[in-house]
């Protein structure tokens, strides 16, 4: 019998991740903005932040832009955002 092998990684799914806790409200919270580093990423996120500040009373805003859109966020920036922010919004802008 000829056995044909599976060329995909379906049998090895990505490691499961645990989602962060969701705050009940955003009033007074610190909001993180993580832009992908492309041309209009932070411009788009700034508009999102404006709405969140107006409608939900977000207090402080921390902005991080990745130096390269193809790279993952640096461990230092990820740790900083996780430590200081109640919510982080990330987006692709082009």
């Amino acid at each position, binding site marked *: 019998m000829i056995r044909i092998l599976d060329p995909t990684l379906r049998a090895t799914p990505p490691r499961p991740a645990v989602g962060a806790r969701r705050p009940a409200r955003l009033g007074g919270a610190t909001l993180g903005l993580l832009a992908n580093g492309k041309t209009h990423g932070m411009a788009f996120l700034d508009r999102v932040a404006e709405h969140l500040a107006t409608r939900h009373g977000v207090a402080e805003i921390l902005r991080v832009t990745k130096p*390269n859109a193809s790279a993952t966020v640096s461990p230092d920036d990820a740790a900083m955002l996780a430590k200081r922010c109640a919510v982080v919004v990330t987006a692709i802008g082009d």
Partner: protein
Amino acid sequence: VVPPTAALVERMLAAGPWRAADVLLHEPVRDRSVTAWHLAINAVMAGCRPEYFPVVGAALAAIGDPEFKLHGPATSTGGAALMVIVNGPVREAIGLRHGVNLFGPGARANATIGRALRLVLLNCLECHPGVLDQSTQGWAGKYSLCFAEHEAASPWEPLHVSRGVAAGRSAVTVFAAESGHNVLVHAAREPERLLRSFADAMAALGSLSPGRSVIVFAPEHARYLALAGWSRARTQAWLYEHASRRLSDLKRAGKVEAQFLENAETRRWLYGESGGSEAVGADAHERVLPGDDAIFVHRGLGPDDILLSVGGGDAGGHSAFFPSWSRGRSVPFVTKEVPA
């Protein structure tokens, strides 16, 4: 494709130095690891002969280098091909073509090594067109873009040696490439006249960016550089100096985006050391300002951004320029030694 039977895959794996579970590529954005086992399956499917496997593994490790940032060229609208340039004795050992029609059909190693990488992207990283691979158009090099350097026709040390690999060893150098431009010159022998057509192609508005470049000189063109005694460094410096456009041309063509002026690195690319302090106002990227005719914007950030190689048939004044994918800096050249 060739059905990847267990027997064929075992033979493929045995031709390289890796164990089945060795991770040759980890893609961090999606946290996917590709082992030598999965590479062997896809190499069989691509039609590789077992003796190609060390080259395929080195190429996969090269595109898996964190500096290469594979997620970008694998998924971007830019539609990059994964270029693999092979140097050293392995070229002859596996029949990898460096001469006539080296980018085209006719050599199994050229056709299948790149194909194996593409099948890994499709099968293991799920870069399916329209899903993760969002190439607006893509191009034919995405099927396979693997070739050897024509070292005997080169005026210089082999490419891999220029990049730090010991002479006599074999290596791959990878690059995320836009489609190539044929640079056609038949009546220029002096380096400055010859290279002008290359610089002009490099400065074309359609692909001008701060990104890197690959030039593959045809043997005929390489010979003129050799006869004139031009070094690799001198050729790179001349090309960088002359592959430039006036800033006013870029503005008239809408090639300067508003956000470019907010990014210090891109401002330096456009304006040099002044950093663009003269560009003021929200529409400074659109208006041609006094002095913009005198500012020349170069392709890349310096001569080292231009990689020079040699390949092709002995007849014909046809060389090639491959721009980096994307409008930004995108990814660097990465060189990895092929295991003996």
